[in-house]
């Protein structure tokens, strides 16, 4: 039986318009064999959580370069839980200082990819750490 491909939502929450990285990662993940849905810019946490549920994704990657990550990550996590989707793997990247990344890890964010991370590493990480939801 063919294994179902993992579905990944790559999302840009908040007002941040820097999408260079998110688009590269979305494409690299797609080339890496995953089903990728890219939300586009200016998504509210509600829109992201709703998309994650509608698209039945296994993981959500948030890209935030605006400094608003300590508001947006927790809100997405909270809404996913509210919608009964708290087994979705959350990861992300952008401009996130190490102390904040550690706090996010405590909240359940499974990985934060900082400047200089390679798409190869990210694709590998997703393959090894994201599992299909039941």
């Amino acid at each position, binding site marked *: 039986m063919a294994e179902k491909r993992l579905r990944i939502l790559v999302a840009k929450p908040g*007002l941040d318009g820097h999408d*260079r990285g998110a*688009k590269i990662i979305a494409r690299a993940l797609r080339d890496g064999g995953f089903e990728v849905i890219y939300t586009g810019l200016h998504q509210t946490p509600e829109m992201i959580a709703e998309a994650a549920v509608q698209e039945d994704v296994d993981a959500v990657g948030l890209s935030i370069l605006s400094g*608003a990550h300590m508001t947006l990550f927790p809100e997405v996590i909270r809404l996913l839980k509210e919608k009964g989707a708290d087994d979705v793997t959350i990861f992300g990247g952008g401009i996130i*200082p190490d102390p904040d990344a550690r706090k996010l890890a405590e909240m359940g964010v499974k990985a934060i990819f900082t400047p200089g991370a390679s*798409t190869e590493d990210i694709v590998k990480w997703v393959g090894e750490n994201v599992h299909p939801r039941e």
Partner: protein
Amino acid sequence: MTTKREWLEQTYKDAKERPVRFTTLSDLAIEPLYTPEDLKSGYETALGYPGVYPYTRGVYESMYRGRLWTMRQFAGYGLAEDTNQRFHFLLSQGQGGLSTAFDMPTLMGYDADSERAIGEVGREGVSVSSIHDMATLFDRIPIERVSTSMTVNCSASVLLAAYLVIAERQGVAWEQVSGTIQNDMLKEYIAQKEWICPPAPALRIVTDMVEFCASKAPRFHPVSISGYHIREAGSTAVQELAFTIADGLCYVEDGIKRGLDVDDFAPRLSFFWDIHVDFLEEIAKLRAARRMWARLMKERFGARNPRSMMLRTHAQTAGVSLTAQQPINNVVRVALQAMAGVLGGVQSMHTNSMDETLALPTERAVMVALRTQQIIAEETGVTNTIDPLGGSYALEALTDKIEAEAMDYVRKIDEMGGMLKAIELGYPQREIAEAAFTYQRQLEQGIKTVVGVNKFSVPEEISIEVLKIDPALEERQIQRVRKMKRERNSIAVKDALKRVAEACRSGENLMEPICDAVRRETTVGEISDVFRTEFGVYRDPGWI
């Protein structure tokens, strides 16, 4: 006399080359050597003299011998009083003019108390929701002596109005106000991605501001046609040049369609380039840009005023070239880039701070960035003569090549029907995404090198001190905005907004109604909401 070809075939052929690709950052092939044979056209046509068409060697006859470029550090964070303090600090350290960074809510047309602003107030720049914030921002800054640049686009009309109203309050006539507002909406859809309504009405607002400034604030630059963001989004140098020039052509066409004479508004169109890390490519790009714009303005639009043909520009060293790893290396990168900007003949420059991959700059870091420009100006001697690298065989060959390749793109966009059409088709957006992806691949394959990242890296804890934005200030600003909304004359506001809406519909120039609304304490978000209602909301097509 030996020809270059003979030298290549007889002498160079036995030379062993290092196993790297000899291309520019943008993948333009670079030859081992350039000679007089590579100078294609004559001095008069291709280069000319500074201050004379086609301005390749410089827009002004005296350039830095007459006046140095303006050192204009981009600044803004927190609340208006925080940024006002940073403004005063920078001016006291020898900065020549101000450059304002606004926060994301302000830039996207939301007030600090909007639901969309949560977590974002004061983070990427200063929060300005109303005339009160603007007054605080420019407290004790004499507008008739200090020129200010404001980096804002879809809500630019409101911020320009606010600046002019503050000038008014200081007793400064609008004819005396000098400065720049970025207001380059075309590149937003292409690269920076700050928008409210779709491209066509956004262009209308830009032209309203161009028309308004041409008669009411003739010393003010109503648009800063920008390549910076296009480059930062991942384009090559050629694409940066081509798409920016194509944007400029669109603005000129729209001004003419509005009924303006090209020479009435073109002199105040300004530009804004990136200065990336490939030294020769960037200098060549800056010179090619001047020559291209001069030729196009003359040949395509019949401009007669030399000032319509002079490409005057601000420049910023490339943010995207900085590394989080070994951040002190960034001081070196910025110095080299700033030198390229000076050798490329810019009129105004911002140098990045070493810590900007991590956060907004600390005072200490921005001082080093400012000193970098001052050291170039005062110690290196490159400002003693105009266009010192002019005539370099390599530089002129590269200038010619970049111009030719950029013109290919401009013609392609012409064939699509112009930049507005090209944007609707997603053409520049997709070119940029492709170039960005290609570069990332090259980095990961080691074809391109970034020192400290994919070569000469060390295991490190990033321990440089960075600027932190106090999260409490968001609530403070929310309360201020709410208080102002409670205490102002709400009937006056309602009338003002109604008038803005009517102007949206009738096609009347929006600036007077917006100035009036701003005087009555109408906010950035409220006026932007009128645009949303009247013109619609643009959604990101999300092309990967």
